[in-house]
């Protein structure tokens, strides 16, 4: 089974944060330009994460998603600020193929079940922000790692699977932004414990980190932001590297 490589666009107030000016991109901060670029250059999926702090501009976000998905002919996952079924349905009808739910799922597990029943498991992605609290133990955090929930990541992952989640986007808060690589123990633990795909996230600084997440972490997909955005590596660089190391990927 081919492993997936997923570039992640962090979008704030409708603009890609830390976007790089690829050749041929008129406006690197425009998420639709970035999505089109990645869609045409080998990304297996694209993740669009809205990190706008305020919740007042949901409609603006929908317009941005609509525009971003317009030239995106690979699957697009959209997350950030999803609170209820209406938010999910609005995102899906704006061109998202999957919706990633984070805090809302922690606060109200019914949203996972209802999303799966109404829109299908295949578009219900549960984002888990995990923070290490002791050796082999991780806790679910929300609000970008600020709020602790007291929930154990392993139990929570199994719980959302049971409720109908189709995929888990697993981010290590300890590694996110550090460029030190994924938390491989965490990734492996969750990948081995659930029967739905796990996307490794948080900490990629080089191509070997992608390999480790897929090989040692046993993830189904590897997500990364800055290594692609800053032009250090292209998606094809990543795939050629993984292929040379024996990881099956779409080239």
């Amino acid at each position: 089974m081919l492993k997936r490589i997923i570039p992640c666009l962090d979008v704030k107030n409708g603009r890609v944060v830390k976007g790089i000016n690829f050749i041929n991109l008129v406006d690197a901060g425009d998420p639709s330009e970035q999505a089109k670029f990645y869609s045409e250059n080998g990304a297996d999926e694209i993740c669009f994460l809205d990190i706008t702090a305020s919740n007042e501009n949901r409609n603006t976000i929908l317009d941005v998603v609509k525009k971003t998905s317009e030239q995106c002919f690979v699957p697009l996952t959209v997350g950030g600020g999803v609170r209820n079924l209406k938010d999910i349905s609005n995102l899906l009808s704006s061109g998202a193929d999957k919706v990633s739910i984070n805090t809302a799922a922690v606060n109200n597990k019914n949203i996972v079940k209802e999303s799966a029943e109404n829109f299908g498991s295949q578009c219900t992605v549960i984002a888990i922000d995990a923070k290490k609290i002791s050796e082999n133990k991780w806790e679910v955090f929300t609000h970008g790692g600020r709020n602790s929930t007291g929930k154990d990541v392993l139990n929570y992952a199994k719980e959302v699977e049971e409720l109908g989640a189709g995929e888990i986007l697993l981010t290590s808060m300890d590694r996110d932004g550090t460029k030190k690589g994924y938390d491989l123990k965490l990734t492996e633990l969750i990948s081995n414990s659930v029967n739905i795909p796990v996307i490794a996230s948080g900490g990629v600084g080089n191509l070997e980190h992608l390999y480790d997440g897929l090989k040692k972490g046993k993830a189904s997909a590897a997500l990364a932001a800055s290594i692609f955005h800053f032009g250090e590596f292209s998606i094809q660089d990543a795939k050629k590297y993984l292929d040379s190391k024996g990881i099956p990927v779409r080239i």
Partner: protein
Amino acid sequence: MEKIIIINTGSSNILSLKRAVEKFNHNVTVTEDSKTILSGDKIFFPGVGAFKKVMETIEKKKLIETLGQVKEKKIPLFGICLGLQLFFDESEEFGPSKGLGLIGGNVKKLPTDPKEKSKIPNMGWFKLNINKQFTSKNFSKFVNSLNEKDLYYFVHSYFVNPSEKTNIVATYNFAGYEIPAIVSKDTLIGCQFHPEKSGKKGLELISNFLKLAI
């Protein structure tokens, strides 16, 4: 220019499909109106989500009969993902649910193989294995354009199991099983993967369907 219809099944991926079709033909109408559907030259039948729920929506919109008429009138009908599954007699998703019965067979849960550690829903890119036994005068051009090297994006937990294996155009390998990926009967064709989300190759497939003269 041919009139292209996308049947509004109330599911969510219609926008993506419309945009993909519009790359090749701008005369695209998304509708649930029976008369408009039957006036189309080619029809897409998309669907994502749960079989039972979408079947209920179709019933509510009084489209069951319309789809039967589409088949009778021999208007080329392209089912995508759940759209393909709905062509069949019944699905075991959420208990047995009746489908449209346009192609004989049923819809079953993907097999699991503990050794393979296969994950369900199965999500990702797969190559097709073309069934050399399949013959169709309607779709021969479409089928001949398929290449076993190309990859398409699948996301599903259930698969179609036609009672006539000669209806299978192509399969793909999942956990050691050959799972039907494209199925066709008469003027109906459907694929389990999402051509509208399979990059350039997926768009080519849509274009090849649009080019068919049936």
